[in-house]
């Protein structure tokens, strides 16, 4: 009976949540495109040690398979996939397919080099070997600025192509500071909400929830208006004589912090509030009556009791902040883009599902790790806490 009641929700979650996640994660290792048109070539390349150029037999196989695939959509897809690895590979493959040397015309490899000298480089062949599929670590490694060399070693992609580790670090850094700001701003508000008279508390609660109900896009663009060079914030600071030149508050990190903190503040305030609401005012009174200075009573009696709220709030805010992309996209500069911006880029602009899936997978793993840590912390606190 109970199972039947929750079945619609479970089904909904399975179809709209779990299945897409599983598919996206699979995309990060799924690599079928090159194998689809060159099954024999890739199989032969698997035996190649990657030091010298592959034997001519491999070239013969590839010429035959390219000939068979010429003009089909599969060829274009495989060319795109190889282009992710080496820029220009798409045109190389399509050009080669158009100008295929006749089979049995002497050394097939030399014939290919004659079509394009790049066939004489090992890295060209290594790219095909890496894309052999059906499952590869290419996208996951790429998401960590790593690649597999022709001989199979894992190495850095090099400083000029490395980007994702830096972006990931930036994402965590922004998430960390947003969480700190939310906690610093939200804790006193939550305390006020939990202790004020119900009339004031209700009013405050509306003020907290009102932005919560407003569209994220509206709130973000509102900050654009407020923070711009001639906006009200600069106007006010200039008006009271604090600054002479308008501050640069937008299209940089300051704007990103301000906007994300504003958007995520309710996620900090609400769990804190619910925990604080359950703490009677008498424990503080008891601590003071027993001889603790109010500051000491706060630190030793009140603060520890709010730890479940702090943990829940920081976790919610941090994890939500990691996934932000609209706000940095609208308010941040080029150096303020977060990992999600790149996931969106690969999904919407280049339809590189493998890369989008790999970056998403890394974010998911970090989130899951954080949640596991939270579970340990909350579990260790024991009864009477959460």
């Amino acid at each position: 009976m109970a199972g039947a009641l929750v079945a619609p929700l479970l089904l909904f979650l399975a179809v709209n949540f779990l299945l897409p996640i599983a598919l996206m994660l699979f995309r990060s290792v799924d690599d079928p495109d090159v194998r689809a048109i060159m099954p024999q070539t890739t199989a032969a390349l698997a035996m190649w040690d990657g030091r010298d150029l592959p034997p001519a037999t491999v070239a013969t196989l590839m010429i035959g398979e390219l000939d068979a695939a010429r003009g089909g959509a599969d060829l274009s897809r495989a060319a795109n996939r190889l282009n992710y690895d080496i820029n220009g590979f798409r045109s190389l493959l399509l050009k080669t397919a158009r100008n295929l040397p006749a089979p049995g015309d002497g050394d097939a490899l030399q014939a290919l080099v004659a079509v394009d000298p790049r066939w004489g480089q090992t890295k060209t062949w290594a790219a095909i070997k890496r894309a052999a599929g059906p499952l590869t670590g290419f996208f996951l490694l790429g998401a960590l600025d790593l690649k597999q060399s022709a001989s199979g070693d894992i190495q850095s992609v090099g400083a000029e192509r490395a980007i994702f580790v830096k972006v990931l670090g930036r994402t965590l850094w922004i998430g960390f500071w947003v969480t700190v700001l939310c906690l610093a701003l939200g804790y006193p508000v939550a305390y006020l909400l939990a202790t004020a008279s119900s009339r004031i508390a209700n009013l405050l609660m509306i003020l907290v929830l009102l932005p919560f109900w407003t569209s994220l896009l509206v709130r973000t663009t509102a900050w654009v208006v407020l923070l711009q060079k001639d906006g009200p914030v600069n106007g006010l600071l200039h008006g009271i004589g604090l600054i002479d030149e308008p501050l640069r508050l937008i299209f940089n990190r300051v704007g990103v912090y301000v906007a994300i903190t504003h958007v995520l503040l309710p996620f900090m305030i609400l769990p804190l509030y619910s925990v604080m609401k359950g703490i009677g005012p008498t424990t503080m009174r008891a601590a003071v009556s027993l001889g603790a200075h109010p500051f000491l009573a706060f630190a030793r009696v009140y603060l520890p009791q709010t730890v479940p709220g702090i943990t829940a709030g920081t976790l919610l805010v941090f994890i939500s902040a990691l996934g932000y992309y609209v706000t940095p996209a609208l308010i941040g500069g080029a150096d303020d883009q977060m990992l999600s911006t790149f996931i969106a880029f690969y999904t919407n602009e280049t339809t590189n599902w493998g890369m989008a899936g790999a970056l998403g997978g890394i974010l998911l793993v970090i989130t899951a790790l954080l949640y596991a840590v939270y579970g340990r912390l909350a579990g260790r606190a024991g009864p009477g806490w959460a």
Partner: protein
Amino acid sequence: MPRSVPRATQDIPTEPAAVAERATPFVEFLDVCKSYDGDTLAVAHVDLRIAKGEFVTFLGPSGSGKTTSLMMLAGFEAPTDGDIRLAGRSVRHTPPHQRNIGMVFQNYALFPHMTVAQNIGFPLSVRGVKREEIARRVERALALVRLDGLGHRRPSELSGGQQQRVAVARAVVFDPDLVLMDEPLGALDKQLREQLQLEIKHIHANLGVTIVYVTHDQSEALTLSDRIAVFKDGAIQQIGSAVEIYERPATSFVAQFIGESNRLDGAVEARDGDRCVVRVDGALTVRAVPVAVGDVGSRTTLSIRPEHVVIDPTDGHWDNVVPARLENLIYHGDHARAQFRLAGGHAFTVKISNPRHAGAFAVGVDVRLAWRATDCRALDPLAPSTTPSS
């Protein structure tokens, strides 16, 4: 009717505590007033002296100002007017954490994130007492409240009674001059409450600490206190020992609030020294002790305790003998309660301390009820009661 209570002369305090109060007042309320809105007084002109080592209870209904008075003593509220002194010094400018007062709250107010031992050790640790010394004194305090071996538990793992014992231990472990208890047993069931009352009394006797106790439960107040201050509408109605409060209530409110009391409304017909004659509404004349009445003709409310009334007396002289009809008889085990209707039409309850004798009475039987004038106190007139008195 045999009675063990000493029959003292009117309203002269004879208890040793009352004498001690004048000698060395430890806690002094000097004409203390408290108003939250600047208009109505939550506490009105409370004047009170408590001797060192005394157990004083503030008793009253909710909203009578007893808790506000306690909070002012603790330092969580400031008097609007008047002064509070501790050991002769005004505490007007002493914040609560420097008053050296232990406090026990109704909802225990234990710290849920600390163990029992950490809870009890808290007042010592904030005073910078050394770790070994804390452990030693916590052990002693745990033994005092008979919770030995439970120091490592969390408060949530204890029963309500055990939690309140921890709260009591925490309030006395640092040897405070004064312990305040704000309805500490209010959340417990009757049996546990009575058991803890005895333990608190025991702790008071053992430690010799001064205790101010707030409750709305009159039997709790009678059991525990050296003296009871009865609060109503922010003011103290009467302060005295349990015996004084119960046997010689000074106002109708005290008579009605403490224990059970038969009430007869009437007007003073004659007055002569320590006796007066009151004509009760409905053609009935009663001799009483004038306590809080005006001249002849003024309204008064008489108070007679149900256990001071005798049914069909066979011997002795009785100041008041009134015909009555039995309407109901309720058996309570150790006593029985007979409800009569007096000749004047008033409902009247009599407590029969030996219920086996009660079997002689049948509902509807006509009897004579008798009581002494000294057990019948003419007090300030209450507003006309809602119960019908024809």
